């Protein structure tokens, strides 16, 4: 706890609650524009902040179009390619997806897009449940440094970073702290 506090005081604020709200609302608009068959869209968050962001996107889409978009969660821990190389195992959670996925547009939602490896794991996980018509990707922050040929369809904020920096996202519902994106320099 103490250490987290120290870090936050050394971090540079990037987005405040209002900026996060606007970015998510813009993503909702873009999803509506890009997907004429909105009812077939499923917003699938990567736990735990991706799930919260997916819920918020769905709420905006409901406000704008009065359509209820289905949401879900996709566990990526058991699909990662680095098991056995990390000192700490990612916690495995059950996925929650509306099935079947055939004919649907699955939009993967994550807080920070970085190497792309988590997204690859998420695509593998989704494919083990079925074959959606298409998969798209939304991220609140794209910090660059991709290690795989993966590109987001919807981005809240493009944030050029150094590899040594850390992007921290805090959301009220998942972290019990006010909404904020900050950049920690090491």
């Amino acid at each position, binding site marked *: 706890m103490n250490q987290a506090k120290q870090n936050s005081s050394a971090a540079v604020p990037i987005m405040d609650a209002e900026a996060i709200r606007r970015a998510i609302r813009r993503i909702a608009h873009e999803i509506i524009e890009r997907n004429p068959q909105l009812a077939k869209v499923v917003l699938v968050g990567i736990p735990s902040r991706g799930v919260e962001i997916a819920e918020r996107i769905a709420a905006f889409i409901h406000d704008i179009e009065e359509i209820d978009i289905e949401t879900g969660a996709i*566990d990526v*821990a*058991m*699909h*990662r*390619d680095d*098991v*056995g*190389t*990390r*000192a*700490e*195992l990612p*916690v*495995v*959670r*059950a*996925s929650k997806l509306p099935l079947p996925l055939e004919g649907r547009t699955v939009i993967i939602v994550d807080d920070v897009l970085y190497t792309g490896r988590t997204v690859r794991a998420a695509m*593998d*996980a989704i*494919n*083990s*449940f*079925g074959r959606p018509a298409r998969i798209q990707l939304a991220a609140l922050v794209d910090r660059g440094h991709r290690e795989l040929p993966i590109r987001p369809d919807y981005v809240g904020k493009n944030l050029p970073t150094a590899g040594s920096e850390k992007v921290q996202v805090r959301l009220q519902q998942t972290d019990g702290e006010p909404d904020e994106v900050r950049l920690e320099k090491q």
Partner: protein
Amino acid sequence: MTTRWTRKDLLGLRELSAEEINFILETADAFKQVGTREIKKVPALRGKTLVNFFVEPSTRTRTSFELAAFRLSADVINISATTSSLTKGETLKDTARNLEALHADILVLRHSSAGAPQFLAQRLKSSVINAGDGAHEHPTQALLDLYTIREKREKIAGLHVAIIGDILFSRVARSNIFGLLKLGARVTLVGPSTLVPREFEKLGVEVSHKIDDVLPKADVVNLLRIQHERQRREYFPGIDEYIRLFGLTKERARFLKPDCLIMHPGPINRGVEIDSEVADGLQSVILDQVTNGLAVRMAVLYLCGGIST
């Protein structure tokens, strides 16, 4: 869920904290769902090698571990051996050397000697999973029992669990006792005094020699098989008398609470510790235990085999 898993081995439930046990059960929730997917396989342990080393015969436990490993994309080798010609120490040392030579990442060991998995765990870099050691512990069986109780009754704390039968020789009973007490259940052991001695009370459980007193109060009854192979002399006069005094007959089952769960680790001796009608009845969760065993073993292999050592 803030607990971190830091163990490379699962040797028994006695050494685990309640938080660690709950962490395994919650991880098993995620793996249970894999069985419902179109593709029932995840790449979590891809490239890892698991050795099923069963010195004592077992079909269901070995098969369950094997299928769990397949679903995690690990490669599996099955080795069975007899200890008859070798002394215990030599066998285990040889085993350790051979396994190191095979570069096994995970060793699932069933052995007739208590402590054999611990002996190897201390000497090997590989993960060692105890699949039953003598009359000592059988942690994955107890974990799947706990998982099934939690799934059906949504909690474990406060429930009254009766474990009935051959407690003295039962590693399943020992692991269950440790796990149930840590998670806050009340445990009563039931059986003839030769198989359920009063010394067990020191563990914090109750002991009864009268099944009819216990059945109406139990929320879960876990029936254990009479382990003929482990008994060196007669511990009760005969099967007929055992059935009369301790068998869960259909007449006795009427005294159970309507929501009492009936469990059995298998293999069942139909007509001995449990009547067929009871084993196949609505209160029986015996086949759920088998299904849950797969999820629990996937969770254990993932946690122990997945950490970097």
